């Protein structure tokens, strides 16, 4: 019976402790995977300045989009395309979208020998390259851009058995940086981090520039705070972080 009481006390403590600890003001932002590092820096900076906590949930844009139409309680979406925020706006789920960053797809490898080839197309033709990671071409805009570039180069069909699908662009980079694959289609932003600097990359000029839109979601309960964060996104401090991670 003594054990019972200890268990009961433990249960009560865990269940009761939540309410007070996390009651402070907090924003919940859905962030496309390519923007994770930049977002984290911005969130930390914003928190320090305003004392408003900003939590991120990271995934592919398509995945976040389907969560939102199913009622996920985010205040803001930082998408990796223009299309999905526009659709949310049209469906009455979001305010008018605005562009917050422009990104670029790259082909990254942990092995510096990889970039000795003249072009990224030549680099991929090398027999040594057995596996190449690419983000989900349906749900991840960076994956879709990489696919377009491969199609333009006439290599999409030929590479099918070498391509490894990642959930989102962050996972594509994870596969490449752990050398689970020989090279990976990634976001330019990944090359700026500590891991990214250890390898080398080609800029994929054939891939369309990735215009990243954001939108405030209509269901937000923190409108004042989320508008403050949106303003912060175009502040000089935020711009500096964007440039650092290779966004335009």
């Amino acid at each position: 019976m003594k054990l019972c009481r200890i268990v009961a006390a433990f249960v009560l403590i865990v269940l009761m402790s939540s309410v007070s600890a996390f009651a402070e003001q907090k924003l919940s932002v859905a962030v496309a995977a390519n923007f994770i590092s930049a977002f984290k820096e911005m969130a930390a900076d914003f928190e320090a300045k305003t004392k408003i906590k900003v939590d991120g949930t990271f995934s592919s844009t398509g995945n976040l989009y389907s969560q939102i139409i199913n009622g996920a309680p985010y205040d803001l979406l930082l998408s990796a395309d223009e299309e999905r925020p526009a659709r949310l706006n049209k469906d009455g789920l979001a305010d008018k979208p605005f562009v917050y960053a422009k990104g670029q797809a790259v082909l990254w490898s942990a092995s510096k020998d990889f970039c000795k080839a003249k072009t990224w197309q030549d680099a991929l033709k090398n027999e040594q390259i057995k596996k190449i990671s690419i983000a989900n071409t349906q749900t991840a805009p960076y994956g879709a851009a990489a696919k377009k570039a491969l199609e333009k180069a006439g290599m999409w069909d030929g590479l099918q058995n070498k391509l490894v699908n990642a959930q989102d662009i962050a996972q594509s980079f994870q596969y490449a940086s752990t050398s689970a694959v020989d090279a990976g289609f990634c976001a330019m932003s990944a090359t700026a981090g500590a891991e990214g600097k250890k390898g080398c990359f080609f800029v994929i000029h054939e891939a369309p520039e990735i215009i990243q839109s954001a939108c405030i979601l209509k269901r937000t309960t923190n409108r004042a705070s989320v508008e403050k964060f949106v303003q912060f996104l175009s502040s000089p401090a935020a711009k500096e972080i964007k440039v650092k991670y290779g966004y335009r």
Partner: protein
Amino acid sequence: MDYLALYVTLKLALVTTIILMVIAAPVAYALAYYRFAGKSFLEALIYLPMALPPTVIGFYLIIVMGPKGFIGKAWGMFTGGSLLFTFIGITIASIIYSIPFAVQPMKAAFSKIDRRLLEAAYVLGLSKKATFFRVIIPNSISGIAAAAILVFLHSIGAFGVLLMVGGSIPGQTEVASIAIYEAVEMMDYRAAGMMALSFIPISYAFLLLINKLNEDSRV
């Protein structure tokens, strides 16, 4: 290390265990002591979540708990909110996901009780309810405890179902198993390692406890 995610995991596992044990006890009781038409079909249905891929469970839960699903719709009418991507949503998912792990050990424990004990209780004038609380539960307590621990551990380990139904919202639906997956994706191996390591002693200690309980019940 992400203490918030560990906390959500612990809270989810506790709430799941408490609710599920209360729901599962009468079900296990019926399965152990009654014979009725279609019993084996019902039993197989109850154990189905154990045999299905978590993504199948997740898929159907999204359908019924979404804004257009019948549970989601009813929930929306009463609360005005969504059930997906909330703590309550993942609690429901976690309960359904763990049903077999509560029912099966409890049914086994109930069936093992000597029938003569129950008959003696009835002869001495105890009602069915009184017999349940004063004879059956004390005599199958180690089996009940084992069921509770199994449910608790199974909920701690849930991943796919929760990711589909809950997304990954810090403080709400981001449980430790999802936080580990995301930390690995972001190559934060330190955070992933710390959290992963904290699972091993917890799970191991509970498994030791189950073994101990099983041994006790055999004596």
